[in-house]
């Protein structure tokens, strides 16, 4: 469950920092581009930080789908399933 998985809080901090937000400003379904003025550079940097923190490589080809925090969390879960 997302509520209890500590990775959710860590992801929230990562995404908030890259998008220049306070963590509490970032909702799970807020759209990165429409609501938080994200761009492709920032999206790539979010993936890079996830790679560094969790050792999970999410391909850049998935970027178009990763448009909110929940989608990023789901991708982390999906890509860690095989290796965990």
């Amino acid at each position, binding site marked *: 469950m997302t509520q209890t998985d500590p990775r959710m809080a860590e992801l929230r901090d990562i995404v908030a920092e890259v998008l220049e937000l306070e963590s509490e400003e970032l909702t799970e379904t807020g759209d990165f581009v429409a609501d938080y003025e994200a*761009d*492709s*550079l920032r999206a*790539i940097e979010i993936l*890079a930080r996830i790679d560094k923190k969790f050792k999970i490589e999410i391909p*850049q080809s998935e970027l178009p789908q990763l448009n909110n925090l929940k989608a990023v969390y789901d991708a982390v879960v999906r890509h860690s399933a095989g290796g965990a």
Partner: protein
Amino acid sequence: MNRVVVTGLGPVSSIGIGVSAFTDGLRTGRSGISPISSFDASGFPHRNAGEVPDFQPERLLRRIDAARWGRSSQFAAAAARLALTDSGLDPAAVEADRVGAVVGTTSGESVVVEAVTAQQVEGGFDQMDPDLLGQITAGRLAHAVNTELELTGESLTLATACSASNYAIGYAYDMLATGEADVMFAGGADSVCRWAHAGFYRLGALTADACSPFDRDRSGILTGEGGAILMLENLDQARDRGARIYAEVLGYGLNCDANHPVAPDRTSIAECMRMAHRNASIKPEDVDYISAHGTGTPANDSVEAHAILDVFGDRVPPVSSIKSMIGHTMGAASGFGAIAGTLAIAHGFLPPTINWSNPDPALDRLDPVPNTARTAAVRVVQNNGFAFGGNNAIVLIGAVE
């Protein structure tokens, strides 16, 4: 206002050093791309670039000691030396303080920055070589040209990234048009470096083997390097000395997207084209050929092509990108574009976009001059240059009427 003409060309490129080799490269659609040798690229998934491995500065430079100048300065000075030789100008026949240089660049002496950074990583900051630190400033690119050619006029380096050569040509045009100078060497220089290779790779903007602008499956740039300098002078002087006149600089336009540090802006680019046309007193239908910025990234080529369609309507001239041949030479890119455009006018041909296989259905009204150079009467060329920072610069070059 004086009219300003191009009377000397100095390309130092991966498809040829000197005007005849470069012209031949354009006409035959040569690729200058090769495996990277200037730095250890083994850790990168993509390992090709448009380096100039044949560049031997000591064979081209007469005055400056290559050992005291960084690679980009060497490119600038060598290109200027070639342009002077090509022009047939006797330097003694002009007042040296009315002759200057304006050199555009993206990364300046990047190779020197990387050398001292390697020293810093290995041994700490205090291990940086003071002699190399003395070579680190970007202003030396123009200073190298003045020193090599003993010019005592202007010596300006413009660091407006990947459109910098067009800025330089534009500023030189102003200096000549207003009578501030009699001869100007203008263009740009840059060197292949790790940090740009890494940055573009990280952005997902670097392709593996071949840059294919305007192709449906284009997948990014290849970094490149070199020096591209044009010798410009006022028309009356050129005629008086019986110079071979390649073409005329008709004017230029500059604006800024003021929107995003990296992403190009269609409306702003279209406005820059209109501004350049106004300043050059031409209409869109006068343009016979567009030397595109054409980096080969999906985003640039799409935005650039749509801006062109916005401005040119149903009469779109052929649009090709020489970056398909020489890669993205950064601050030198629009200088090479200007040289190619000048040669297109002088010799009546369109440089091709090589590596082109599939039309992009989204750009179906665009003729990218695929793969093979084409004979054509070219009277007016539009040379596009766009850059990080939203620095758009477009130069118009025309046959001398």
